[in-house]
């Protein structure tokens, strides 16, 4: 085990990612993520100060198509995929008053 990522870090990241982990899972994920981040530490050896980052392989910018009216998505079909629907809207449990 190394110091690349702590158990608390993993618990924090899991919260950010909306995942709940058991204690055993926290242990195994911490050790596995540490291994992966340790492997990624080989990048530390590189001199990258002057290098521009690449976010995307294609040099595309502002891809705009002609503003032509086309077929509109069928709302019924999309609503049919949802776990719960009311009055043509997606329905969820109460969003306010979260204990978290």
């Amino acid at each position, binding site marked *: 085990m190394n110091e690349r*990522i702590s158990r608390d*870090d*993993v618990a924090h*990241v*899991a919260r*950010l*990612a*909306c*995942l*709940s*982990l058991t204690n055993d899972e926290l242990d195994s*994920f911490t050790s*596995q*993520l540490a*291994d*992966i*981040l340790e*492997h*990624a*530490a*080989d*990048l530390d050896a*590189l001199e*990258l100060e002057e*290098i*521009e*980052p*690449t*976010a*995307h*392989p*294609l040099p*595309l910018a502002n*891809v705009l*198509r002609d503003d032509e009216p086309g077929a509109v*998505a*069928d709302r019924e*079909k*999309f609503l*049919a*995929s*949802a*776990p*719960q629907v009311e009055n043509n809207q*997606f329905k*969820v*449990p*109460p*969003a306010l*008053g*979260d*204990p*978290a």
Partner: protein
Amino acid sequence: MNAREIPTAIRNGETTAKEVLETYLEAIHNREEEIHAFNLVLEEEARNEAERIDTLTAEGENLGPLTGIPVAIKDNICTQGVPTTCSSKILDGWRPPYDATIIGRLREAGAVIVGKTNLDEFAMGASTENSAFGPTRNPLDTTRVPGGSSGGSAAAVAAGFAPLAIGSDTGGSIRQPAALCGVVGVKPTYGRVSRYGLVAFASSLDQIGPFAETVADAALLLEVISGHDPLDTTSIPEPPLDLSTALTQGVEGLRIGVIDELSGGAIEGISDDVLECLEDAVQALTSAGAIVERTSVPSTVYGLSAYYVIAPAEASSNLARYDGVRFGPRVDAKTTSEMMVATRTAGFGDEVKRRIMLGTYALSAGYYDAYYGKSQKVRTLIMNDFANAYKKYDLLLSPTAPTTAFPLGDKTEDPLQMYLQDICTISSNLAGHPAMSVPFGKGTDGLPVGIQVLASAMDEHTMFRAGAVLEASNQGKS
């Protein structure tokens, strides 16, 4: 019969789409239980489609280059009204309200879609063992994995369940299973094939491509699915590929560089029998008139590290949409946020959780520059190194995978070992370049080895020239 012979045979009345389909369905009936290449076999739909094709053909209609050819589709590509699961419980029962662009193109070309193939959940893995519906087995040795993540598609072609299949490749997910199953697999240039309707994993790396038994059949399928699509903003504004002349052109005078780092040089773990096959491939290309020599593409060594930051980072963002609100199953809870946590915790498997957390960590405050920022710069280095290499060489060459197919369960406990399967394939995704795997020789265990041909962006044509030569030489040997 090769895939490309099927449409002509149907048009000439030597066979029918129905008859062709039944041959493949019989193979599926015989072995699918053992192999588990499919999440869903569309037997009835395929029969109806084959009948429709036969009726239209009888009326004299020419349906296109894939007339009556059965095609298997990776189950992360949307098919309207037909379950699309990404081999994840979190999409169990979901039926997409639309077709991916390539599905429309396949149908227009006369293809018969036979089923949706198994994959590592959300295409994250190199063995198809990360599927929520159980692993796919390698048809050549059922104690071994087929590779992944498109293991179901590779196995479907290798088992004779379909002559053609569609996969997606984010870090090697078409090429590595193609190598392990002894079939041809192609990752086209990023943007060559529309990603509209491909369930997103890492959007700047994902690309759809073909599997086939032969290089010519892979070319045929790629021609049909390539070409500009206004529904995908990253789609390259070019017409569909025409690769017909590439297949017979040969490699006379082509300059080909063997990437030293991936071929027994800097990176360890490439097995000796794979390297021997690579040497034989070099001989074959040299005999065919190419000038082949070793060359260095130094930053490919860092591809794996950069990839396993960038891909999880993009995935953590892309997979935020699975929250139990708009589609897929929901685990009920008192509040919305508790419902989201419960749904995601129950719906995602371990590898997907691992990558979501890795990506969330790499993007989080305090670590962004150390991991994500740095990896994006390494991506630039890799692109620069490839650009330099392609000043001297028309193509590059390496093994596709470090070993032949490994036993099921061999790497499931050690994610990093599994990630190392992608060591030779990842750099092409980071650069957005095309690359293909062609079966060439066998390992000491008798299982197939794949040789990877890499080309610069947009140069699938030259890549297929070398692919066809390797295939011809490999067939000459066996």
